[in-house]
């Protein structure tokens, strides 16, 4: 017994030593980021993104549209997700500790105009072209990934009136033309139309995922078609870029595609890698999206919206792209 206790003590000491040493090693590599300049959200030929470079991970930065791989301006602001349009920014970031998050409405100089506590993990962020409407998606999880339930919650804020829809689940839903009620409704990936009232989003229920059209003022949502996720409306409002599960099975990956709303024609993009991101229109002909590269790193790529050409590496070590003037 004595020998066993000694072996146990030695083993525990060694393993505890390894754990403590690793934590020490990891914290030694943590360093502060120095901002390289002030980022402006004033519409202009710049691309906004979240940096994933080791030196300034998480910080909001911009590059010139003409030289996206070139010099970047890094701000002191750090976000988990970021988006901006029409001079308004939306930053989803941790609120104190890791368990809670907040939504920050940013002005043109990246200063906070309003902070709203969020519950769940931030996943998507969008701002309407005018900068008036904001939308976000969070994961809401129970206490455990093991058999626990997960759901998403999409919220919308009207910055002009202050109206806040914390979740779209209260909206009146019509599925294939019939009123529909269910406990398992999940919404994510909102994108706004030019009128700052209508929007598109993804709705999932009973194992199906739909493209839905919503009305913020009337609090209504109706389904349009299936297997269209994370829609993103083109600047001219005629097309929706989205990701679709290959063979309608998310386990097989996602294919970026564009839906022509008037002709109801779907065109897959030249990008054949699985893309799990809400696409962003960089202009009326180009779509940008993030592709992860190892833990914590990601690159922004672009592809022509008409399905031609080939994917191009646009901004290395970046994600959450947004064109400040598409």
């Amino acid at each position, binding site marked *: 017994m004595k020998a*066993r206790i000694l072996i146990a003590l030695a083993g525990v000491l060694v393993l505890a030593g390894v754990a403590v040493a690793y934590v020490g090693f990891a914290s030694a590599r943590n360093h502060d980021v120095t901002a390289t300049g002030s980022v402006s959200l004033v519409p202009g030929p710049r691309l906004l993104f979240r940096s994933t470079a080791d030196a300034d991970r998480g910080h909001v930065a911009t590059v010139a549209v003409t030289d996206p791989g070139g010099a970047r301006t890094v701000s002191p602001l750090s976000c988990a997700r970021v988006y901006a349009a029409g001079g308004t920014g939306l930053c989803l970031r941790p609120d104190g500790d890791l368990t809670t998050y907040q939504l920050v409405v940013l002005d043109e100089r990246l200063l906070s105009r309003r902070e709203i506590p969020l519950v769940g993990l931030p996943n998507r962020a969008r701002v309407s072209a005018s900068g008036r409407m904001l939308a976000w998606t969070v994961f809401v999880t129970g206490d*455990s990934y093991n058999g626990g339930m997960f759901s998403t919650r999409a919220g919308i804020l009207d910055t002009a009136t202050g109206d806040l829809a914390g979740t779209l689940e209260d909206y009146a839903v019509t599925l294939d033309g019939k009123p529909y*009620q269910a406990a398992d409704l999940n919404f994510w990936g909102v994108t706004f139309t030019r009128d700052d009232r209508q929007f598109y989003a993804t709705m999932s229920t009973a194992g199906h995922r739909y493209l839905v059209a919503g009305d913020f003022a009337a609090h209504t949502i109706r389904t349009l078609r299936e297997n269209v996720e994370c829609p993103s409306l083109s600047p001219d409002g005629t097309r929706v870029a989205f990701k679709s599960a290959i063979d309608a099975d998310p386990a097989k990956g996602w294919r970026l595609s564009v839906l022509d709303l008037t002709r109801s024609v779907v065109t897959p993009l030249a990008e054949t890698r699985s893309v799990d991101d809400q696409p962003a229109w960089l202009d009326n002909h180009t779509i940008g999206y993030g592709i992860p590269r190892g833990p914590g790193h990601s690159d922004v790529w672009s592809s022509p919206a008409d399905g031609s050409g080939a994917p191009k590496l646009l901004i290395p070590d970046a994600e959450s792209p947004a064109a400040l003037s598409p």
Partner: protein
Amino acid sequence: MYLSTIGRREHAATGSRRKLSAVGANVFALGAVSLVTDVSSEMVTAILPVYLVLGLHLSPAAYGLFDGLYTGATALLRLVGGYVADRVRRRKAVAGVGYALSAVMKLGLLAAGASATAIGAVITLDRAGKGLRTAPRDALITLSAPEPLLGRAFGVHRAMDSVGAFAGPLVALGVLAAVGATNPEAFDAVFVVSFCIAAIGVLLLVLFVRDRRTPRTTQSASVSPRAALALLRGRGVRRLLVAACVLGLATVGDGFVYLLLQHKEDVATGWFPLLAVGTNLSYLLLAAPLGALADRIGRLPVVLGGYGALAVVYLLLAGPVSGWPLFALALALYGAFYAATDGVLMALAGPLLPEALRTTGISLVQTAQALAYFASSVLFGLAWQFWGAELAIGVAAGAAVLAIGVTFVVLSPRRTS
């Protein structure tokens, strides 16, 4: 004839009633292994959603896939693990493989990087480790404590287990605080620390848990697929399986209970994880006392009382009580339900199973309960969708009451000779 002992007051237990240590050093050793292992696994559980969504950018649908990934696979593996443990007469070895597999998978998360496929595989293997170890561990407990003290033994084990589950997220937050939550190394550090703690659990198992190997002559002939099937023909085991299924069917799933609580009170979603904490606290405090109570007044009354508590929880969700009293009462009773049923059902099962096939039998009971639980969750989801929350929870309360009746009829003591 085994069944005649189920509901009876166990006079043998009264002599050592006051001494918790009477449950045996092996039970405490197994409890310590579970405690340490749960610290390790719960610290990963606590940060995994953040890691998958923010670190690796998985979308809702991809994240949802991980949820459903392992239900079927681990149920099957549990049966295989149980049978193999009996067949090679090495319950500790099979449990050890399960613990070691889960420990190594903590490093697997590190190695999987951003590949969704690799992460899916790692999580599946991690859960496979859990499936493999649960039945042999519970079988070891039944062999490590005197039969009249089994309720207490399981109570002590489950209480120690919950302490680990409680501490896990706190340890994870401590590591994140030490490393810096925005540090790119933050998640890696949690995984490495989690691995080290899991390895300590394996070490404790290897050094301090003793297996009880019965002589081969009386054993090897009786452990075969045919013998395992014959288990199902035994009246005692069949009744136990019926009871496990009925009890599983009466439980609609934690997620639903918490969602209904939240629904009813419209609390901020930030409180959501705290609901589970409340339940766990109640479970932790009540597991050992209710286990001891089961040894004194009979296991069946305690299990039935547990389902009574569950029925009251469902009624509370549908009833007029609101505000903090509702939360305190519902979560305390929900924890009491787990404390009165989880370990006690195993204490009920243990003595009914021949020693040679005990692990197989326990894995059968656990699998039956898990599958019934899965079915009831799906059914409740549909009921909620088609009938609305109010009616669905009313039906669930009715099912819990019905389960009490059926369990009583099936398991109540009778003369079988």
